[in-house]
């Protein structure tokens, strides 16, 4: 924890050689890896890692609407709960359930996923997406969304397209892809982007602190590439997964 603070003081996030603190290039993404079916209880589940950020998403449903009042007659009810483990951050804090940040992120994820799920095909049902952060090292939103996409796909829920997400920032006058915690907490601009790769649509765009228009363009561009890269990887993982299923079926 404390070494991070000491870093925070100096504003040098790009070494003269053009490398970032963790040795990445500005346009380089962290190591990503995904695993499907980590939660046997769930209808679909996936773990997604971006560097040190590690999240698990589990999908339950489509199932009977639990709270009768919430039932929607012409489409499915999509719900999402985002939770951070107490040990997920460097400092140990017992965070109360449903604090502002948590509810906000839950909402973001829910809306993003809802946009790509074909809800009208499953009226009067409920789909629960639970996301659990095991380690937070920047870009949790993106990681959660990617995990959720995989989990939904694994649960066989009809979707228009896979949503993939990636964040990008702008520090020391250079656009940076996939910020980690240190860069994220530097207070610079931070853009989280979620896209539907094949439909080529933007479903999520969050940016904080101000950014000149052309700088934004470049950051946006970078983030989009990031999303595409993630999309490629997610597709591979899914194909792999389906192959496995085929083998098990003995097809």
């Amino acid at each position, binding site marked *: 924890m404390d070494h991070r603070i000491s870093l925070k003081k100096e504003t040098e996030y790009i070494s003269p050689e053009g490398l970032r603190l963790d040795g990445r290039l500005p346009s380089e993404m962290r190591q990503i890896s995904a695993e499907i079916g980590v939660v046997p209880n769930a209808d679909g589940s996936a773990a997604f890692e971006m560097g040190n950020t590690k999240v698990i998403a589990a999908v339950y449903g489509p199932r009977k609407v639990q709270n009768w009042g919430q039932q929607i007659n012409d489409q499915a009810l999509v719900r999402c709960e985002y939770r951070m483990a107490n*040990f997920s951050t460097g400092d140990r804090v017992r965070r109360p359930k449903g604090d502002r940040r948590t509810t906000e992120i839950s909402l973001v994820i829910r809306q993003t996923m809802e946009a790509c799920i074909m809800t009208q095909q499953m009226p009067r049902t409920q789909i*629960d997406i*639970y996301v659990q952060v095991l380690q937070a090292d920047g870009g949790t939103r993106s990681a959660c969304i990617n995990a959720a996409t995989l989990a939904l796909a694994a649960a066989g829920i009809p979707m228009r397209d896979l949503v993939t997400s990636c964040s990008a920032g702008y520090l020391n006058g250079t656009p940076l892809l996939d910020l980690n915690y240190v860069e994220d907490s530097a207070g610079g601009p931070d853009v989280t982007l979620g896209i539907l790769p094949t439909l080529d649509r933007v479903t999520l765009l969050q940016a904080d602190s101000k950014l000149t228009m052309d700088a934004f363009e470049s950051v946006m561009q970078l983030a989009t590439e990031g999303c595409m890269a993630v999309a490629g990887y997610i597709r591979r993982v899914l194909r792999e997964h389906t192959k496995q299923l085929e083998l098990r079926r003995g097809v």
Partner: protein
Amino acid sequence: MVGLSAGEKHFIKGGIDQDLRSDGRKRLTYRPISIETGVIPQANGSARLRMGDTDVIATVKAEIGKPSHLHPNRGKVAIFVDCSAIASPVFEGRGGEELSTELSVALQRCLLGGKSGAGAGIDLLSLNVMEGKICWDLYIEGLVINADGNLLDALGAAIKAALSNTGIPKVNVAAEFSAEEQPEVDISDEDFLRFDTSSVPVIITLTKVGKHYIVDATSEEESHMSSAISVSINSRGQICGLTKRGGAGVDPSVVLDMISVAKHVSEHFIMKLDSEISAAEADEAGS
């Protein structure tokens, strides 16, 4: 949690009576256990334990604290369990809290010993840095990833693994300080103290189905248990804590019988666990 038809119930029950459970186990055999240590780098120690489909993570975080003036030469340990909603929709929101507290309390009872600290599985004296001034506070967090029965045993074992994975930094205390204020401390980043977990007990939960006891019950089996007893037993065969679960009453003699059975089971379990842990440590060091 699990809805079972009368037929299924009868099947499971019958299987247990004939010492052949639905997943092919005997009454007193455990599901395969796999342990993975150091899964959470931010923590001082961590372990992920899978027992069949039950999947839990335990982490240990150590922080410098002030000992309570009741026990000036002891560190403090707190145990929290969180049932993540990903394990089951019923844990959503506040839904998991009841089970979480129940598990936390049971674990504290089984691992922390009596109020005077006697019989504590975790040696609190070893957490002492300077009497009455500085000690280590251990925060042990359990997280349930997937629940398929026998959570308490799994968490207990995971915590044991996490503790043996824990390295507590060496602390150098500044030489001079006045009587009143806290002395300066500096925590070294390189050299760590390994934690001795030989005395950390394991938890054995015996679930009573009909007139038989089974270990490591799956959630199906738990769903129609009449009652269960969780005994924590250390390597010396001493009982370090006991919790009864399930409301139904049992005859005192049965309780004692269950305890002795648990004791017998524990010997194998401890051995198995230790080997698993050392294996996990090995390939963590390897990787």
